[in-house]
């Protein structure tokens, strides 16, 4: 019994040797902990987009064939992008809306590039839950505000693709893009 008390509870013994011993055990357990936590880095980051996916995250689109009033769907990051050539009437409609009445206040100028206000480039992803709104394709309904209409839950966007009605919280997202020439736009 006496022996057991000593061997099974070494921490009860006295002296500096014991404190040093506790420190070593603590250090060893901590090292194992550090090893375990650093293992998580590869185990977690492997699920992030891989190099081939990231490499495809920019798209160049030729827009020379899009007439005023027309729109095309392109692909950016495996999601649709709407590229729309607005008519003067649509631009006027968008500019006529009082900003203060909007859920997500933005002017058309803020959503387009200077000097290219007729080119409205937005993600074709409804900001509610991610469906593709109608309105970019030929003959699709554009909703009561003449822009886009999401059939999933009834969100309606205006000619500047701003949310006007329905559950979506935000305007359709404008991706980063630039005009590399008058007819080519690079998205991403």
């Amino acid at each position, binding site marked *: 019994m006496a022996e057991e008390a*000593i*061997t099974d509870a*070494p921490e009860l013994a006295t002296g500096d040797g014991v404190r040093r*011993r506790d420190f*070593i*055990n603590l*250090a*060893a*357990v901590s*090292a*194992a902990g*550090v*090893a375990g936590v*650093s293992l998580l880095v590869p185990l977690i980051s492997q699920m992030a987009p891989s*190099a*081939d996916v990231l*490499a*495809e995250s920019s798209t160049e689109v030729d827009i020379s064939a899009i007439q005023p009033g027309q729109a095309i769907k392109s692909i950016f990051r495996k999601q649709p992008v709407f590229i729309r050539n607005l008519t003067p009437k649509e631009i006027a409609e968008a500019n006529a809306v009082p900003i203060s009445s909007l859920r997500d206040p933005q002017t058309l100028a803020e959503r387009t590039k200077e000097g290219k206000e007729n080119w409205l480039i937005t993600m074709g992803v409804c900001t509610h839950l991610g469906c593709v709104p109608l309105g970019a394709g030929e003959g699709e309904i554009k909703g009561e505000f003449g822009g886009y209409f999401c059939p999933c839950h009834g969100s309606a966007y205006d000619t500047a693709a701003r949310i006007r009605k329905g559950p979506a919280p935000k305007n359709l997202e404008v991706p980063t893009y630039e005009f590399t020439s008058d007819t080519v736009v690079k998205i991403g």
Partner: protein
Amino acid sequence: MIRIISILVGLFFTLGLAWSFGNGAYTAITEPAPVTAEHEFHLVPKEVHFASDGPFGKFDRQQLQRGFQVYKEVCSACHSLRLVAFRDLAALGYNEAEVKAIAKGFQVPGIDPNTGEANMRPGLPTDYFPKPFANDVAARAANNNAIPPDLSLITKARHDGGPYVYSLLTGFQAQPAELLKEFPDAKTPNGLHYNPYFANLNLAMAPPLTADGQVQYGDGTKSTVDQMAKDVSAFLIWTAEPKLEKRKQTGWPVLGFLLFATVLGYMSYRSIWAEKKKKKA
């Protein structure tokens, strides 16, 4: 009972083996296996050193760029590199614009956006190296009935990969007279080329690097056949394992930490067992 059965089963297998052994030994004595030309004249790859060798090895990016140039101007006529994308070339030290320009220099299969017909278009960084032949049948037809293997993984798909490729490229020679004397039937067939570093000595590929200066290097390195062979081998070591450098660089801190943790673990083990061990003395 079980022991009697076991001994009987044991005898069954040992006698079966002894029978096979006896037959094999008899055949080996009466009909010794013929010596083949491959066995006598095949050579192991030459000794050659690459910057990426060894535990501290790093790629020599200048050399990889030269090797890429050799691949592009010589090998790519017949050999594909299907697992490598142009974007990967950024690892060779090319910047984004250079990668784009390189990609543009290759024609890759595409689709006409208006008619939907198959066509060729200039490559993009996300495209993979195009294949020189449409399919295996075309490759066979154009290459004396031998398919030129894809080179993406070639240095990992052969023993002693880098030195093997280098030796093969520099190993073409006339068939030795002793070989013909010893094995008159082993004369290199028409259309094949003798190379002692190739497994069966006769290779369908004609010597691809034939003259010094066949490729004009931009960095002033003299493009001897030996240098070109070495450079393209180095490039193919990279294509087979682009992550080789990162692997070795990750390995050192990992091993260092594990050594430290193991020593701590050992000390902790000793201290916990100290009481138990003490009584041993």
